[in-house]
């Protein structure tokens, strides 16, 4: 019916299509599961329910709020409107300082407590997460 070459080409195009569909499906599915949303303390205040998903919270470390013990560090993240208590055990970056911007990654316990699994460091002392900057400018 068709020549060998046409069949081969058809097969080839089919293979490309299948791979494309498959990889798009895989990527989208994985994105859905592994994406981490960024929220500010104010957004958390107005959450209707608490999800079990990993999130990031950004804001400023409240002045005089850092309290350190052998196993963990407690501090408060504020966006100058609302604040949230954070409990963290892990590596503390050097630029983690009271009055400076911070991004914490972890899980919400309830609307007032956040269990952080990671604190993100920035390389630049003048750097502030854009979200924090925006929040501070609104104020």
């Amino acid at each position: 019916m068709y020549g060998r070459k046409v069949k081969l080409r058809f097969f080839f195009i089919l293979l490309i299509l299948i791979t494309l569909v498959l990889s798009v499906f895989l990527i989208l599915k994985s994105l859905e599961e592994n994406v981490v949303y960024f929220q500010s303390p104010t957004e958390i205040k107005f959450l209707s329910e608490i999800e079990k998903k990993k999130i990031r919270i950004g804001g400023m470390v409240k002045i005089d709020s850092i309290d350190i013990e052998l196993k963990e560090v407690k501090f408060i993240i504020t966006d100058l409107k609302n604040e949230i208590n954070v409990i963290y055990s892990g590596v503390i970056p050097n630029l983690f300082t009271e009055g400076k911007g911070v991004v914490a990654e972890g899980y919400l316990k309830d609307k007032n407590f956040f269990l952080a699994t990671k604190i993100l460091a920035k390389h630049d002392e003048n750097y502030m997460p854009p979200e924090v900057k925006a929040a501070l400018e609104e104020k």
Partner: protein
Amino acid sequence: MASLIGLYALIFGLCFSFLIVFFSVKNFRNINVFDNKIIFLTFLQFFFVVVSFLGLILSFVVSDFSNETVFNHSHTTKPLFYKISGTWGNHEGSLLLWLLVLTLFIFLFLLKSKKQTKQYRILTLLFQQIIIIGFFIFLIKTSNPFNYIFPVPDEGLGLNPILQDPALAIHPPILYLGYVGSSIIFSSTLAATSLNYISKEWAKHIKQWVLVSWIFLTLGILLGSIWAYYELGWGGFWFWDPVENVSLMPWLALTTLLHCILVLEKRLVLTSWVVILSISTFTLSMCGTFLVRSGILNSVHTFANDPERGLYILIFLFCLIFLSLFIFFFFHKVEKKNIGNFFWLSKETSILINNWFMMYFLSVILIGTVYPIFLEVISSDKISVGPPFYNKLIIPFLIPFLLAMAIGPKLNWIKSELKIKSYLILFLLISLLLSIFIIKSLNINFLLNTILVTSAFYLFFITSRDFFIKKFKFFSQTIAHFGFSLLILSILFNNIFSTEIITNLRIGETFHDEKFKINFENIEKRNEQNFKSFIGKFNIENFNGNVEILRPELRIYNQPNIVTSEADIKTNLLTDKFMTMNLVQNQDYFNIRYQIKPFMFWIWFSVLLISFGGIISLFQRRYER
């Protein structure tokens, strides 16, 4: 003074671009022999960019703070070495370096391509000049490294201390040699496409350039990774951070291209694929520069930067993509008579399969990197895509990738017979047994890890066998593939066997758990040229009773006023012991991280082996001639 010379040299360089374009077009139309004046002009252009670059270096060395770039990134108390490396440690200087490499490469290209036809050489030069002019204008208009400030400040702002590091001093130049090397591939592929010049000889000639930029890109990524390992103090070598991803993407495209060029050189098939890959490699390199420099990416490596610059690069990039797509669709002719005849079981197919996977990895990384940007624009949701995403999508597909890599080189070109070679099966069995033996006692996902380790061991054994029996001809390929198997094995074992302790300690306190005892003995203060240093002394006793002393360091730099931690790493062939100490503000506790990371040395070493494979291939070609 030096910056004034630099600025004028830069403008002269731009003028030479127009001269070169003028004479090239004239030469292209009229005369049959290549006009040597053009080579001379190209050399002069390169020379002026060098002068400009030296001018900037000189301004940094003498701390001429009337220059804005120097003021922003240097300081009189900085050691001389970092004054010099500070030249390319910032946006303006690093773009000047881009330009320097661009002009250097086109000059070298003209010298090295004497065997090619005149038209092809000139057209390559013209395409390269388009890129060069774009960068000249970009540099002069949006990020001039020689801006004058008045009144002249007494003191500069200083270089970010974490950039004051030997590895990071040479990382940008080497990485750029790789990035910018791809511009030559881009220009010459476009030239060859428009002239319908693609042939086996062309493949042989362009392969050298692919190899050169591939080697530099590999080494550049390695250096960046090593730097991140000891300087950022997280004890990892790859974080799937956007800034790292944008260097990995051109690498993947370039690696794919390298393999396709080999097919093209032998069989003259896959020409369209080679053209597409050349275009995408350079586009991805440009994108890398754009994403890093525009500050769009939310990355831990982000330094304060300027969105306007990003816009310019973006427009420039779109023009280049448009131009190349135009050329591809209107000039590219598929060779009708020689069209891809190869059996499904052949070397070509196995290379294609691996290309397929490589493109898949590339798209995963691309989507993971740019999806957050798009989502933020569309829905203003702020998200980040972390390592689990990449691990989940990439790791399972490494298994067929590794297997194809092991078996592929054993097949013949065009058509291969399904002969059962006994050693192929024997090695598979050995690797399977070995991995089961290693994995079974550990408390991790048994099935996935066993199959992964098996396929990595399989490649490892098969390439090791090649060292003993194969001829010298395939040595470069064997060594690169062997390096890759070693890399995957080391990464896997590094992940499986790493341990970590994080705790907060005061001076004199001791941390206990069932395996380790960490005693914080004392702290010692020192004053260095531009920082104060606090060195902790820790005695670590493991369950055998062996005591080891580690001395992590905290540095408080005076200008800019930043605290950094320097990890103390004890390396031997099997494991790294890694310790960092961080200060917590206003508290007498120190945050301590102690890690045992096996096979770190082998991760670095295997990447060196991979690039060594490229180097051998490069010189082998020369040898044959």
